[in-house]
């Protein structure tokens, strides 16, 4: 992790992307997010914020250009390698939380470990998950299923799931969009606190411009450029 401090964790150069069946396209001449940075991606709906996250994580491949994430040329990786890279290197937090109702909170946190053979679920991982849950105020809720949790608690479970693999990068797609103001602040504080504690880079898509002062970098998709705040 230390090797990336001060270096670019995310780097896009002359990226051009088109959806095969849609009219949407995204062009990024240059985007760099240094390691350990808290960055926000803003822009109106349809400006390509989620697509940007998909390109950075390798869910989508650009038509041309270079996408380098944590020093890896993601655009050059095979589909299997990109999946493997994604689950071991990146943590995701979604607006809809996307927790699984049939798993309790602890199993939801450990879910990535059930999905890929490169992640091994052992006692140390379990203990890390417990610690993380405790840090996020979930210690007494681990046996509950998502429907038994409040919105804020669910989002905290989702944050724990994103952090449990100790990723180098967290990509958060409007993670507070479904939360009330008080819960939103609490969830963001926890997310920032955990990222800072682990020197994890955070790129968060948001519509809430009131939050921007908490980010070191703002990526404005509409302007197709970057601005330092």
């Amino acid at each position, binding site marked *: 992790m230390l090797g990336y401090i001060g270096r670019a964790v995310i780097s896009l150069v002359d990226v051009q992307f088109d959806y095969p069946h849609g009219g949407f396209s995204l062009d990024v001449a240059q985007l760099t997010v240094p390691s350990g940075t808290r960055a926000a991606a803003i822009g109106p709906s349809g400006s390509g914020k989620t697509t940007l996250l998909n390109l950075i994580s390798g869910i989508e491949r650009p038509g041309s250009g270079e996408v380098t994430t944590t020093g890896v040329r993601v655009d050059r990786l095979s589909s299997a390698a990109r999946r493997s890279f994604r*689950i071991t290197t990146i943590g995701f937090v979604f607006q809809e939380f*996307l927790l699984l109702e049939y798993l309790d909170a602890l199993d939801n946190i450990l879910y990535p470990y059930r999905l890929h053979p490169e992640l091994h679920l052992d006692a140390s991982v379990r203990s890390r998950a417990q610690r993380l849950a405790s840090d996020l105020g979930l210690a007494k809720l681990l046996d509950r299923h998502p429907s038994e949790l409040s919105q804020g608690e669910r989002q905290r479970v989702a944050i724990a799931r994103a952090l449990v693999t100790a990723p180098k990068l967290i990509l958060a797609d409007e993670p507070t969009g479904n939360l009330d103001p008080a819960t939103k602040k609490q969830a963001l504080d926890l997310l920032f606190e955990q990222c800072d504690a682990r020197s994890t880079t955070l790129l968060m898509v948001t519509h809430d411009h009131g939050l921007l002062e908490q980010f070191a970098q703002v990526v404005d998709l509409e302007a197709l450029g970057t601005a330092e705040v």
Partner: protein
Amino acid sequence: MRDSIYLAWRYLRHHRAKTLLLVLSLSLFLGLPLVMRAMSHATQQSLVSRAESTPLLLGKKGSSLDLVVEALYFHLKDVEPISGADVDAMQATGLALGIPIRTGLSARNFPLVGTSLDYFPFRGLRIAAGRELAIMGECVLGAEAAETLGLGPGDALLTSPSTLFDLAGVYPLKLHVIGVLERSYGPDDEAVFVDLKTAWVGEGLGHGHQDVARAGPDVVLKRQGGTVTANAKLVQYNEVTESNLDSFHFHGDRSTYPVTAVIVVPHDEKAGVLLRGRFIDAPTRQLLRPAQVVDSLNKQIFRFERVLQIVVWTVGLATALMFVLVMVLSWRLRAEELRTMTRLGCSRWKAAQIMGAEIAIMVGASIALAAILGIVMAQYGETWIQNLILRGS
């Protein structure tokens, strides 16, 4: 793989009602052919073993199947009777033992079977409680009849009137239960056995009444020589007791009294062949081999079973299609979950493995359930089905 199985198990456990429904449907689909085979086997065994243990059967010429079904399985078919003379004639040949069977009456819905004492050792029937038949008016109950009626030695049982509204008909006869047979898992379990004379008394061919010679003038209509004509005041007995046993008598020639059939047990193979030869051209009698009759019946059952098999496979196909449909719809409903898996970095193979594990667990549980059903059917099915056949008869 362990993780896939874990996730699949958690999913199935969470949706236990849906899982249970699918597993039960599949189990039925897989287990039904086993149950059917066991049923068919048990039915055939039940029919065959009884028929094979009965060497020959003598009866009135007509439907051989009806004769076998009535005389061996006591399913009342209104078979035309032969007579007591046929029993005597068979004994007189010196070639075989003739065991008379008289059916037609019932007692509280269980068939009343009049026979001789030879019937019990011939069928290998043993007394579980009480004793054998000894005098007129006694009965021995099959195990099922005794259990259902809650009767045992010392109790009494009335024969059922053949026609409820026949006021001039035969009065019910009160039978004394003196024994209960051991369970034999055959038609004998449901029978009420009496001796032949008791069966005839039950039919009204013999009766007992107050001694008319000692009856008062209010009972006697006319005395002419040794003949006394009594009126309706004469007391008729509906129960054979020690004190009135001697008053029971038969009018007419007993050799003309009806017998449904005679079980013929030849002394040896040659005797059997000789007897069959004698009845080949008999105009009003038939001497048949029950095993042959049942064999032809079994061929019909086998044909029916094949039709049933086609039906079962069609139902099975429909069940399998329904299962596939439920799974496809379930996966469609879980599209968001699959998308999340992909976004997190799960491979398509892993996702397929998780879904496959769900199917494997359900199919495995269904096979296990069907196998248990098969084992249970193999172990106890024959007995249950024989009981079912008996109760359904």
